[in-house]
């Protein structure tokens, strides 16, 4: 409607742009306010981490992988450690398996809260953004109290975990979970009924089930399009085989349904955390390490953004021969092409945020 001037023009977004948490460059062909073509240039956060990993010892790589991305920062060392353990056949103690799941789910809740908060930020709903971020602060406090850092938990080590829970910390965790759960329910109600949110997110960034299958998307993007993909269910690891949880899906495949998947997943995660706190077995936190033999191994996990794959290849020395990881966002970027087709300029940040893209993960 505002295409008063020339029919198409070029609009650059990024690499340094407020709506993008991270640098990514989009070149849009726009016709008034309507997007006709998208071309993206990546690589601004490419730090050459896979080359660095070959120069670090197997221990140093725990820390290095944690810095792939700080929003899913627990999933990386966790899956990396699983790859080492799969390779060397290290039996991780039962207690450690539960503690690992706890760290993972705590991160998932705060990661999803962050994504939902940014959604509100993008549509200019500042108060809601702040409200959700304040709820996230409860989880940040949990992380800071349990693990000593608000982003990078440093919970994992090869063969187990580095930290323990005691009665007092468990009490603290459970009471925090109660607070978060109450707040999340209220937030879910707002996201599900607020006129402003519904008008901005319903029917925007449509991504159908067939597209989801064809582009092999993962995580909440796939589940928002009705595909029940979840590594925790498909190939259970750590303590997940002993926990009961639901794989959340939504059918509409728009920005709103991806948001609602995350919303409902938080409640599932809170439930998993309660189960872990209840069933936490006694025992050691980690095992003594054997020599790491030469070989290759894979490990998979469900990070907050979807399936995460680690491939490790060793040659009997202290440094890996190859360490490669495929992050969930890597699979989801292509989906943007489908979602952004003929969308409005105002909806671009919203659509980009709806795949919860992690650029630092993708580019390493």
């Amino acid at each position: 409607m505002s295409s008063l001037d020339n029919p198409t023009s070029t609009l650059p977004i990024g690499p340094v742009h407020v709506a993008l948490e991270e640098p990514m460059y989009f070149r849009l062909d726009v016709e008034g306010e309507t997007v006709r073509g998208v071309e993206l240039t990546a690589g601004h956060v490419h730090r050459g981490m896979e080359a660095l990993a070959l120069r670090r010892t197997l221990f140093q790589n725990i820390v290095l992988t944690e810095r792939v991305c700080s929003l899913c920062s627990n999933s990386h060392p966790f899956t990396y450690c699983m790859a080492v353990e799969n390779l060397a056949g290290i039996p991780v103690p039962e207690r450690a398996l539960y503690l690992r799941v706890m760290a993972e789910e705590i991160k998932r809740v705060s990661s999803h809260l962050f994504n939902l908060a940014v959604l509100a930020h993008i549509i200019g709903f500042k108060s809601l953004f702040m409200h959700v971020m304040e709820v996230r602060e409860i989880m940040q406090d949990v992380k800071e109290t349990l693990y000593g850092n608000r982003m990078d938990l440093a919970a994992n080590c090869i063969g187990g975990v580095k930290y323990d829970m005691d009665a007092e910390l468990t009490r603290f965790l459970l009471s925090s979970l109660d607070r978060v759960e109450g707040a999340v329910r209220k937030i879910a109600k707002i996201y599900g009924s607020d006129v402003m949110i519904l008008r901005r997110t319903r029917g925007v960034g449509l991504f159908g089930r067939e597209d989801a299958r064809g582009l092999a998307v993962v995580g909440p993007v796939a589940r928002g399009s009705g595909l029940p993909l979840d590594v925790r269910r498909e190939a259970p690891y750590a303590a997940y085989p002993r926990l009961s949880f639901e794989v959340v899906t939504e059918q509409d495949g728009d920005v709103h349904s991806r948001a609602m998947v995350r919303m409902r997943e938080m409640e599932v995660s809170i439930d998993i955390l309660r189960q872990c706190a209840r069933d936490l077995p006694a025992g050691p936190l980690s095992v003594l390490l054997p020599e790491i033999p030469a070989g290759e191994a894979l490990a998979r996990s469900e990070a907050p953004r979807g399936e995460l794959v680690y491939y490790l290849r060793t040659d009997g020395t202290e440094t890996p021969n190859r360490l490669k990881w495929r992050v969930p966002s890597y699979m989801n970027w292509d989906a943007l092409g489908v979602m952004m087709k003929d969308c409005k300029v105002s909806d671009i940040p919203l659509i980009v945020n709806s795949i919860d893209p992690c650029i630092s993960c993708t580019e390493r």
Partner: protein
Amino acid sequence: MFGFLKILAANVAKGPSTDPFPFVESPAPKRFRGKVRLNPALCVGCAICRHVCAGGAIHIAGRPDGSGYDFTLWHNTCALCGLCGHYCPTGAISMSSDWHSAHPQTEKYDWCERHFVPFLACEGCGEHIRPLPSALTGRIYADNDVDEAHLARLCPQCRQLETALHLGRNGHEDHKRA
């Protein structure tokens, strides 16, 4: 919108949730991983901390005169991962809950944890060595009735010799008793 007004009203009623930090100190929780600290009395210079440090923050160098070694940890490249403390065999390295890290650029290279750890002369052969901390000797010789304090002040060779002799003596006595 109207649902959200309720939250706004509740917000006003609850009052600000702002941390009064710059005006009042904000303590970190007990487990907080802040600046790394070294207790030089416990450090034996094994350098496992340097080995596992992904940021390359730790530097350990002996003095040319053999009087001891310098331990330097540069906070500006420390990722606060805590692996050094986790793998430290004597518990010499720990994470403090000190999170104050802002400093002007002029202090960039001085933002360090520095310690000089002296060597002592071995009570056996006189060579410069780092005595074993009591925490460690206590653990190693928990089941033996040896003079731990003396053993701690021996170089590895003399200590080996001494323990062998000791075991030999005891073993001999046991044998005699039997």
